[in-house]
Structures are given as structure tokens and as C-alpha cells.
């Protein structure tokens, strides 16, 4: 069975696990090609205008997969990956949004992913929502999935081991690793000779340490990771500068950025916020990034 896997949203963080889960259950993953202009335009045409950029991109990938020869499309409903912490409402409603704009063209495989459930319940949910799974094999692959993901997370090391200033580029994985959406931000930074750190380069303990500085624990997993990493940079001087990347209209980020800005205003580490949407142009973005890096380098001289 050929199952479409959109190269968008959480794919960027979980692709090793997803591909493993697919293969061990006898599905052939058909991953969409990287984001391009056509995909974005298709996504824009399918979405409500106020939806955030990552979801528009996601819809574009869904559309382009729907045009290929696939038997089903994998769009999970990601509710929670940690206890008492959730994903943003768009992840919760994603399968409904996709079904709404695609109609019944292609069967959707949309299991509810809620890791605060017991493993048994997750297993049952998988069987219920993907009726093509073999119970025993699914149980085994579920067990190995966690191991693979842990190994994937431990592999984090600085993206470009340059010698220059350390810049933490913090944001959601689908904004940081989708080169079309952020105009190759990580490459631009690497060319400017800085060492880039992303959320994945911080260990769980470091993020927990940073997040302890919050007055109330955040209930969004990703937002909490970003805040934790940013606060850790402040507390331990782990980076010389921090760039926050957010998509326009992102609900959680609107508050998270404010919290981080308020905190950084009292300290000496430079902070820059980049807001992405479908109207962004690369020249303006590159200029801002260059100016930021120049400023970091000149701080030593002046």
C-alpha cells in the first residue's frame, strides 16, 4: 500500500520514526518533494486566508500528493506528546481541515496521537483508525518507535560547526527546517560564518532548566521548548545572539515571543524576531540577518 506522507509540519522532526513505522507495517511511504512555489500557491487556494503559513504549506503538500498515485494519505491528529501539554488547535483540527478541502478524493489515515495515553490505548487507537494494521506487528513497531525517536533526538549537534559567533535560531521545526519557507535561513547564517544552534541542539535537561524560569508552566509543547532554550541561552550564555522565527498569526508564538522579549530586554544578549508569511521576500530577510550578524561581530570590537 502506498501512503502519502506530506513533507510539512511535524515531518521535519519525526520522519525517522514515521518512515520506520510505515515500513514495519508494510506501507510504502510516498514523501512529497520539498516545498516550492507551486505547492504554496496550491495551499493558498485550498485554505482559509487567515490560516498560518505552515498549514497553507501543508495543504499544498497534501494537494500535490493527492495528484500522485497513492492509496491513502497520512494526516495524524496530534493532540499531545507530553502529559498536560498540547499542540496548537490547528494540529488538533488538521484532519478535519484536510478532509474539508479535499473532500473524499483519497482515504485519510488520521490516528489521534496522544502520548499521555497508555501504550495499550495508543495501540488500540492505531488499530481503530488504520484498519490495515496487523495487531501484533503494530505492537512491535510501536515499541521500537520510541527507541528510534530517542536515538534521533540524541544525535543533535551544531548544524554548521563553524568557529564564529553562536546564534540560536529558535522556532518550530517546520519553520526552521523548511528551506523554502524561511529562504534558506540556516544556510545564510552558515555562509556568514556563525555556528547555528536550533532547539534540537539543546538537551532535554537544558530546556527544562530554562523553562523553570516561567511563572506558569506553558501548555504548548513546542512553545515551551522554544522558551526553555531561549531562557537557557540567557542563563548560561549558551549563545551570543538569538533569532526567533515565527509564522504570522501563530497563536502560541504571539504570547511566547512577548515573554521572551520581556525577559531579554533586561539582559545583554541580542534578540531578533523574524515573522514569516507567504508575502515575505528573501532580500529583506537576508539583509536583516546580515545586519544582525554584523552587529554581533562588532560588539567585540566596540
Amino acid at each position, binding site marked *: 500500500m502506498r501512503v502519502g506522507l506530506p513533507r510539512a509540519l511535524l515531518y521535519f522532526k519525526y520522519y525517522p520514526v514515521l518512515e520506520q513505522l510505515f515500513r514495519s507495517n508494510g506501507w510504502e511511504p510516498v514523501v512529497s518533494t520539498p516545498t516550492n512555489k507551486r505547492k504554496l500557491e496550491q495551499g493558498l487556494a485550498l*485554505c*482559509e486566508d*487567515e*490560516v*498560518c503559513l505552515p498549514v497553507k504549506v501543508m495543504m499544498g503538500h497534501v494537494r500535490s500528493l493527492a495528484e500522485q498515485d497513492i492509496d491513502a494519505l497520512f494526516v495524524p*491528529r496530534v*493532540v499531545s506528546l507530553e502529559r*498536560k*501539554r*498540547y*499542540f*496548537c*488547535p*490547528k494540529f*488538533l*483540527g488538521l*484532519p*478535519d*481541515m484536510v478532509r*474539508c*478541502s479535499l473532500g473524499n478524493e483519497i482515504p485519510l489515515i488520521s490516528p*489521534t496521537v496522544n502520548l499521555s495515553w497508555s501504550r495499550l490505548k495508543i495501540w488500540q487507537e492505531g488499530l481503530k483508525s488504520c484498519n490495515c494494521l496487523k495487531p501484533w506487528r503494530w505492537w512491535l513497531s510501536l515499541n521500537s518507535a520510541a527507541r528510534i525517536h530517542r536515538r534521533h533526538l540524541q544525535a543533535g549537534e551544531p548544524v554548521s560547526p563553524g568557529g564564529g559567533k553562536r546564534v540560536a535560531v529558535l522556532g518550530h521545526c517546520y519553520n526552521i527546517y523548511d528551506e523554502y519557507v524561511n529562504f534558506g535561513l540556516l544556510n545564510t547564517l552558515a555562509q556568514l560564518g556563525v555556528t547555528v544552534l536550533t532547539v534540537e541542539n539543546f538537551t532535554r535537561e537544558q530546556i527544562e532548566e530554562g523553562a523553570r524560569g*516561567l*511563572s*506558569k508552566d*506553558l*501548555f*504548548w509543547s513546542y512553545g515551551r521548548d522554544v522558551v526553555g532554550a531561549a531562557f537557557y541561552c540567557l542563563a548560561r550564555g549558551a549563545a551570543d545572539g538569538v533569532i526567533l522565527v515565527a509564522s*504570522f*498569526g*501563530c*497563536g*502560541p508564538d*504571539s*504570547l511566547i*515571543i*512577548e*515573554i521572551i522579549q*520581556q525577559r531579554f*530586554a533586561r539582559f545583554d544578549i541580542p534578540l531578533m524576531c523574524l515573522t514569516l508569511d507567504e508575502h515575505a521576500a528573501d532580500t529583506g530577510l537576508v539583509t536583516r540577518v546580515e545586519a544582525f550578524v554584523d552587529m554581533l561581530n562588532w560588539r567585540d570590537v566596540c
Partner: protein
Amino acid sequence: MLKIAFPHLGYCAIPLRAMLARLGHEVVVPPPISRKTIDLGTRYGPEFACYPLKLGLGNFIEALEMGADTLLMGGGIGPCRFGYYAQVQKEILASLGYKFRMIVIEPPLGHARQVLAAARELKGKESWLALAEAAWLALFKLRACDDIHRACLYWRPRVVDKTGLSRLYKKALAAVDRAETPGAVREARAAALAAMEKLPQNAVVPPRVALVGEVYLLAEPAANLYIEEKLGNMGIEVVRHVWISEWLKVNIFLDFLRLRRREQAEKLARPHLSCFVGGHGQHSVGETVKAARDGLDGVVHVYPFTCTPEIVARGIMHKIAAKHGLPLACFSLDEHSGEAGFVTRLEAFADIIRANRSKKEAVRHG
């Protein structure tokens, strides 16, 4: 004794003031939301945070300028942003140099200890019995306000003298505000409802429109640009299912007692949006289905710009509305909303509804 203030949410200042005054606090009711409130909120609030956060921030700044030293705010557990408002507002106000304390009331289920601590603080030197009594009076007033408002929505398209009704409504709320006992509240409510019924009416049966969306925008007329009044004055009856008193009953009390049942709107939404998406997203979808089923003439959806749950709902609502041939107008509002464009869109919507009506009537008679 605290000099306590809270953000506005429609007429919720009436029950809140009654409760806090009963407990012997000095209540600083912030001035009604004005251009100044909006400007303050947008100047200091995060750029793409939602409108309720900015308006609440504006309320707080105005109240602090009036001498308040304690701010009362609600909390939450996500995934809607509201649960983190208080922390963000607190940081912003502190960075502006205000000295204050903030009491955040979290949902009781799972936060029993915090709620108890907040209640103890609000109670001050009074007894627990006094707190219960004050809360009871506040709930009574809230119910009465909701009833008066509901009646006003019903009568507005029907009465001839719309300004007279507005005057009556304001007077009725003031009477509820003045009432000292549940008995007096009941009398004020009954008097208001009777007086509204006596106003001269026109004979037409008005078209009915469901008003759905995010609760703050539904309940705060200054935020929704007085949409209920405008529709009513155009001769359209507004039907609303989200009421603050109902919301408190379901989401605070029943939830705490673990007696919360799935509401009708949630059940109706499930085939289209099968899980809770925070805020009132699922309700909006469910009420659109309900409006189509009950044969209403249209749906108006209001929500703050960038409100994620409602955006998720909106795409789905469009599909449902198109399927049932139900006119749907979506208004995403924030500080930039212009009155004139808003009125034009509402008038166009009203025209469509009236045209649909006469078409239906022609079919029935011809």
C-alpha cells in the same frame, strides 16, 4: 481590604462588583471600553496577540491609573491562548512600572489548591459563608443580566421604538446593579421583562440569525462593534447559545464535579470536527449545524483576528453552510476594524437574508 479591578466582559462587571463589594473590598471598575482603552492595549500588547488580551490590558492600565492595587484575572489550561493571558499581561504591566498584585483564578479541576488560595485571598477577613453568599448573589445577578439581554435580543427586531428598548435595557441593568438581595434582583428582572413586553410592536415576523463564535467577542459589545444591536435594528432577530452563566455552569461547576456531559453543539459538530480544538471552535461548528437544522435564516460568526480555534472552525463552517444553502458572514475583528465597512457588510448580509425570505415565501404561496 483590596483595591481590586478586573477586565470588562459585557455586563460581567455587575456581578463581579457585587461579589467583591460584598466581601468588603474597594472595587475599581475600569471605565467602559473606549478608543483610549483600545489604544493603550494595542500600544503595549504583543502585536499579533488576540484582541481580548489587548482590551483586557487596556482595562488593567486604566484601572491601575485609577488607583487599583490588585487585578483579578482568569486562567486556563490550553490549548487556547487565554490560559496564558494573565502571565503575559502581568509581565507587560510590571515592565511598565506598575506596582500591583494579580490574582489568577484557574479552572478548579486540577487546580483545586490554587483556586482555594485565590478564594482565601478574595475572602479577606470575611467568613467562608460570606464568600458563598457573595458568590451566590453574583451568580444571581449574572443570570438576571443574561435573561434581560436574551429578552432584549428577542424584542429588538419586533419593537417599533428601538431607542426606547435600549434605554429600557440600560435601566434594567442599572436596577440589577443596585439590587442588594437575590429577591430584589428577581424583582428587577421581572420588571424589566414585563416592561419590554409592553413596548409597541410591529406585526412582521423577523428573520432569525444565529450569532456564533468566540465567547469574549460575543459577550463584549465594544469588541464586536455592537453587532447584536445593529442586526436587531435592521429587523433581524439574533439567536445566541453561548451565555456566560451557562458557560460557568458547564465548564466550571459541572467540569469540577466531573459531571460535564457532551453538549448538544459538541455532538452536532462531531461528524465535521471530531475533537475539541480549544476555545469555542467546536461550538461554532455545532451551532452552524444546529442553525441549518432548525431552519434559521443565516449565521454570523465573530472572532478575534488570529484566533486559531475559530479559524479551524471557519473553514469547516463554510462547507456546512454551503451544503445547506445557509448564508454565513464571518467577521474577524481587531483594533483595526472600521465601523463603516462593517456596517456595509452587515447590511449586505441582511439584504441576502431578506431576499431569501421573500423567495421562500413566494415558493410557499405560488
